[in-house]
């Protein structure tokens, strides 16, 4: 692993990071960069594919995840991966999602240079665009960070509050804030041979106090893990058909959550297909038998079906919850479900491309409690 630092000039973290990215782009090591950058209106930051270093005004700190970066990489690489390296700036949850999509043959890592960024958390889109504080969300976040206060916590999306791991793994290059004195420097680490080769040619200063980073990463992981444990405990009670139906009461069957989910990779969702179309007599028969019948009849089935299909690969990015027009707090159900399902198969989504999806693995010792031991 190579440990370097980017010197922060004039207390401008974003600008200094951009200098680095621009340097990277003009060095020819990568042909283009996919990075969050504010739209001309400055209201919102979206992933932007940049090939001209002069047009680069990225904001890698911007606390917003409007769409899944992993899904974008999937779209760009699935038909044919790029022939020259392409840099992709990603948060940890999106790297995990990308690993899952690679396993599902929906994306390729060929010529993809993953530049992971430490992520303190992101705000819901509307909070970001209509931010109540007097500063921009990025400024606000950086200040809070320097002060080491938890003022930003209240704005974070629920998924971010209980993030599984805010520090990127499986990246080629990591841009690290945790443990850094960000008024002075941010960390740049190479986590792969590709990353090492790229950093070698850029003139960067060596990192001096490696221990600080290590300690800070450990601390933030512990802290998030604690919050996640509390969250899991709190939400334990949403069980049984009555509670679950009540939870999804507001679902209008719009399928936005599926559209936002990086893992939902089907061309045509089973729940959009004609499988659940039925002759009128079937509906009427059900109404006749029970006296009444709630419509649309397949909203809950869709929610549970989608959960069944993707939960083992769920990386807990929370994009589904952000997409819900009726603000159903989906993470309250999906995080506990993911935790339990993944534990059952000892599966870690996003950890390693060689770890097979449990659906296609047969283990003699699984579910011993079912049937004969």
């Amino acid at each position, binding site marked *: 692993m190579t440990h370097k630092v980017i010197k922060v000039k004039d207390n401008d973290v974003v600008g200094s990071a951009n200098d680095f990215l621009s340097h990277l782009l003009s060095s020819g090591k990568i042909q283009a960069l996919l990075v969050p950058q504010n739209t001309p209106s400055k209201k919102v930051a979206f992933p932007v594919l940049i090939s001209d270093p002069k047009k680069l005004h990225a904001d890698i700190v911007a606390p917003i995840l409007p769409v899944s970066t992993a899904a974008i990489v999937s779209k760009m690489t699935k*038909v044919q991966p790029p022939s020259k390296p392409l840099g992709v700036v990603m948060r940890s949850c999106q790297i995990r999602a990308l690993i899952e999509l690679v396993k*599902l*043959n*929906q994306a390729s890592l060929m010529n993809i240079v993953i530049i992971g960024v430490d992520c303190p958390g992101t705000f819901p889109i509307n909070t970001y665009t209509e931010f109540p504080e007097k500063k921009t969300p990025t400024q606000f976040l950086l200040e809070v960070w320097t002060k080491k206060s938890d003022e930003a916590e209240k704005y974070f999306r629920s998924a971010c509050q209980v993030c599984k791991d805010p520090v990127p793994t499986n990246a080629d290059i990591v841009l690290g804030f945790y443990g850094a004195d960000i008024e002075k420097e941010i960390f740049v680490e190479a986590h792969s041979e590709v990353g090492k080769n790229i950093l070698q040619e850029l003139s960067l200063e060596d990192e001096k106090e490696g221990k600080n980073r290590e300690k800070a990463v450990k601390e933030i992981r512990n802290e998030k893990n604690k919050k996640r444990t509390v969250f899991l405990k709190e939400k334990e009670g949403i069980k049984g058909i009555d509670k679950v139906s009540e939870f999804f009461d507001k679902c209008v069957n719009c399928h936005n959550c599926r559209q936002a989910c990086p893992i939902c*990779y*089907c*061309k*045509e*969702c*089973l729940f959009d*297909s*004609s*499988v*659940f179309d*039925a002759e009128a*007599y*079937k509906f009427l*028969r*059900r109404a006749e*038998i029970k006296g009444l019948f709630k419509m649309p009849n397949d909203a809950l089935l869709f929610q549970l079906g989608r959960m069944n*299909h*993707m939960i083992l690969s769920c990386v807990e990015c929370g994009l589904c919850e952000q997409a819900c027009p009726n603000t159903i707090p989906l993470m309250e159900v999906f995080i506990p479900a993911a935790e339990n399902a993944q534990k059952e198969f000892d599966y870690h989504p996003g950890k390693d491309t060689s770890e*097979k*999806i449990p*659906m*296609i693995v047969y283990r003699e010792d699984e579910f011993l409690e079912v049937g004969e031991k």
Partner: protein
Amino acid sequence: MVLVTINSKEYEAAPDETVLEVCKKNNIFIPTLCHHPSITPYSSCRLCIVEVTQKGWTKLTASCSLPVKEGMIIATNSPHVQNGRKILMELYLARCPTSEQIKELANKLEVQKTRFKTYTDPDNKCILCGLCVRVCNEVMKVKALGFAHRGAKREIAVPFQEFSHVCMTCGACAFVCPTQCINLSKLSPNKPVPLTSDFDAGMAQRGAIYTQFPQAIPNVPVIDKKACMYALNGTCKSCENFCEKDALKHGQEDKEIKVDVGSVIISPGFDTYEPPKGDSYGYRIFPNVLTSIEFERMISSSGPYKGHLARISDGQPPKKIAWLQCVGSRDESCDRQYCSSVCCMYATKEAIIAKEHLPGVDTHIYFMDMRSFGKDFEKYYDRAKDEYEVVYRRCRIPQVEQDRKTKHLSIRYVDDDGALKKESYDMVVLSVGLQPCKDLAEMSKILEVNLNRYGFIETDPFFQVKTSRKGIYASGTVTEPKDIPESVTQASAAAGEAAKDIAALRGTEIIQKVYPDEKNVSNENPRIGVFVCHCGINISGVVDVKKIVAVAQTLPFVVYADDSLYTCSQDSNEKIKEKIKELGLNRIVIASCTPRTHEPLFQDTLREAGLNPHLFEMANIRDQNSWVHKNNPLSATEKAIDAVRMAVAKASDLSPIHHAKIPVVNRALVIGGGISGMQAALSIADQGYETTLVEKESDLGGHLKEIYLGAQGEKPQVLLKQTIEQIMSHPHIQVFTNTVVDHISGYVGNFTTTLLVKKEMSPATIQHGVIIVATGGLPYEPTEYQYNKSKDVLTQTAFEKDLFEEKSYLKNLKEVAMIQCVGSRNEDHPYCSRVCCSEALKNALRFKELNPDATVYVLYRDIRTYGFREDLLYQKARKNGILFIRFEDDHEPEVTLTDGKIMVKTRDTLLRRELHLHPDKLVLSTGIIPQDNTELAQQLKVPLNEDAFYAEAHVKLRPIDFSADGIFLCGLAHSPRFIEESILQAKATGARAATILSKEYLETKGNVARVISRNCVGCQLCVEICPYDAITFDEEKKVVIVNEILCQGCGACCVVCPSGVSQQNTFTKRQIVSMIDAYLE
């Protein structure tokens, strides 16, 4: 027909039926004690009383003797009836307070205790119902029994209270007695002999009509004419009253049937050795001494002990069990000189299962040589020792003693240090050997085939399915004791040889069934017919069949619903066809047993009626319902109704499925030109199919080229020469030497293979339907025992060549030592090479012939001369003075060279001291190791086992098939084996290959998976999960493709596909949703 009302519901009845009969038929409970369907009603127990209203009169009357009349109104459970029955029950309780049967019935009728005093003997159990008297008079027509005395003293008795001399001791009286109080020994001077089940090794009783064993084919009962009273003296025939289908045919006689055949296969199996009563093991005298067959039945969960391991003497679970090996094997004293080949392994298996049934039980096996020579057997033996802690003791036990009181058994044995020890056991199992079946001698005379000296069928030494008579073949244990894989292999080989003789006539006697044109139902609304089966009483005894029919009639699209006693019977199927035509039914639902056995039958019925066979759905209300919910009839009925509702819902979504027919390329590719490959090619080509034989070397023959001697004087080199000549002159065989397989694509019936011919530029491409893998093995090249360092250390192969050539030095040798297991049963090669013991002894014996004065030492761990080799080689070697020195696994001999002289140091386990030998020649019995099979295995997509030999589909049931269809395996590529065993496998692959090559086309199954490719995203989860390699990814179109021939319809792909792109024809998502909806209604 008359109409009666029972419990406010109308029933039809035949005019000659009694009220009781009508009720029983309709599952209406009426208690009885004195009633039996074969005996005239007697109305003595009165329990069957019912309340009958007729012409304005209401009275209580016995239903068993009351004929039905038009308009009768019957109440079977009114308060009046209940009170009457309760008083009767109290009286019975008073008379027979100790009868379990009476107490049970009282309990059922809610009578707990009696208000009356016991006025007879308190142990009396007889209720004086007279069934015994009546059965004896009416059914058996003997009149041995009657009533004696009157009033309170009335009792059942034989005349003059003496033994009856007309009594046949048939036991009918005891059988019908409702309280089981008849003691036959008081009636007859003869001791009744119970009929016991042969299948259960005499450990369970059976009736005179019985099913031979649960898997019997055909699975119908047989009448034991030696025990059937009708067959013996024309009485009884009681069974006819029970068979509602009138299927019993007492008059049936044995018939002589003449069949014209072109070839014959003898395969009658074996008998087990029966230790004589009163021999030193105490079998049949000491209750806790069992044969292995008896033990096997005891541990079988469907056996007489239901899998509970228990001592016969006291029913207690044993704490310690001993197995004594070689009972009736390797024993001249009982004229069984051969080894039975299977006992070491089955004793090991039984010891392991005993431990699984009774954790903590000690299992000890007393043996002479452990013969775990088969594929993966050595590993099983190791696991038994290491994992299961089965104790093996090398000692033949001469005698078993019994403690008279405790029935414990004790054994004396000599331990490894030579000390005589005694150990006590709860149970001793005699591992009995295999012997020719009882009638084999007679059968051989009829068939005019020779038996060998051991009484088995004599076969050609190299072609062990060939008997002494042309056209007659033998397979299985009838030729030599052997295990299941060898028996199955030999059976296929015999089938192949038998088919070869009549190949020209293949298919000439087949009558093609003609079906009517299929009706197009696509524009019709579903019209469903539901047929619910009673399966005798299998279903209707638990589930309310009539209720299912009533519900089915109300379901959407159901036009017709009915029940029948046996839906699978011919008349029922005729009725289904009639109803399809009469009512225009276009979907059929049958609620009965299981599609595993009966789907094809019903589908054929649909085809005969002009419907596509897939417009059919089955609801399993027997195997998964009535059989498992016997004690919950109400819930069972509910569940059955659910199953039928779901089946009907699915049926309305069924559409016709047409099977694709894929032509078969009638050519075989045989890879490997050794004896196995050549014999496989001959077997296939002789059956009339084109065959391509590929050999990587410049000439055919493989390792057979290095084998010169046969154990019984047969000549391997002559065999080789003849086989090559046959191959080269065969019109159907094309030979490629100097050729390797480059690439294989395709699937069963349609393979395409490119062959690389050395020194030729262009590869050859061939199309073929099957592949035989006969790539052989390799000899182990020793690095131990100073091999390559002294010219006096050589392998058996080299020694054999010298013996064959009768090299002059052989006569001058004074001492020769042979070391066994070189490169076998060690860490690098943890398996037994099977042939080395016999090869060594064969060479040792030949050497002794050439040089009788020389001393030959054989240093060994276990001598594994299984089967007849035990006698032909091992015993002969011992008689000829060859010296055997056994060494322990952890004390391998040491070989040193001093001035070119060999010294072998070994510790003799018998003398318990170190020996120093100075042989002139040291011969190493080297093992067989696998070829590098990895690349070809990948091409073929077939697995290798842990030792890198090819792994077959199923060790016992499919020993020469791969799990991939159309690919077969033989010879050393499978595992180490003798020439004749390789030939058997080769011939067997020929027969297996013919099952595909004889077809014009292969037909896809109905339930295959189908992919809607426009929606496929190419995630390939289905490709990975498919156990049959039936799904591939099209790199160009980026979608998956199902090979419908390879698809077995397991549905795994449909489960992993989240978007429902992969769906099974007979389990579409739509159908499944309909079923779930129906269930949740």
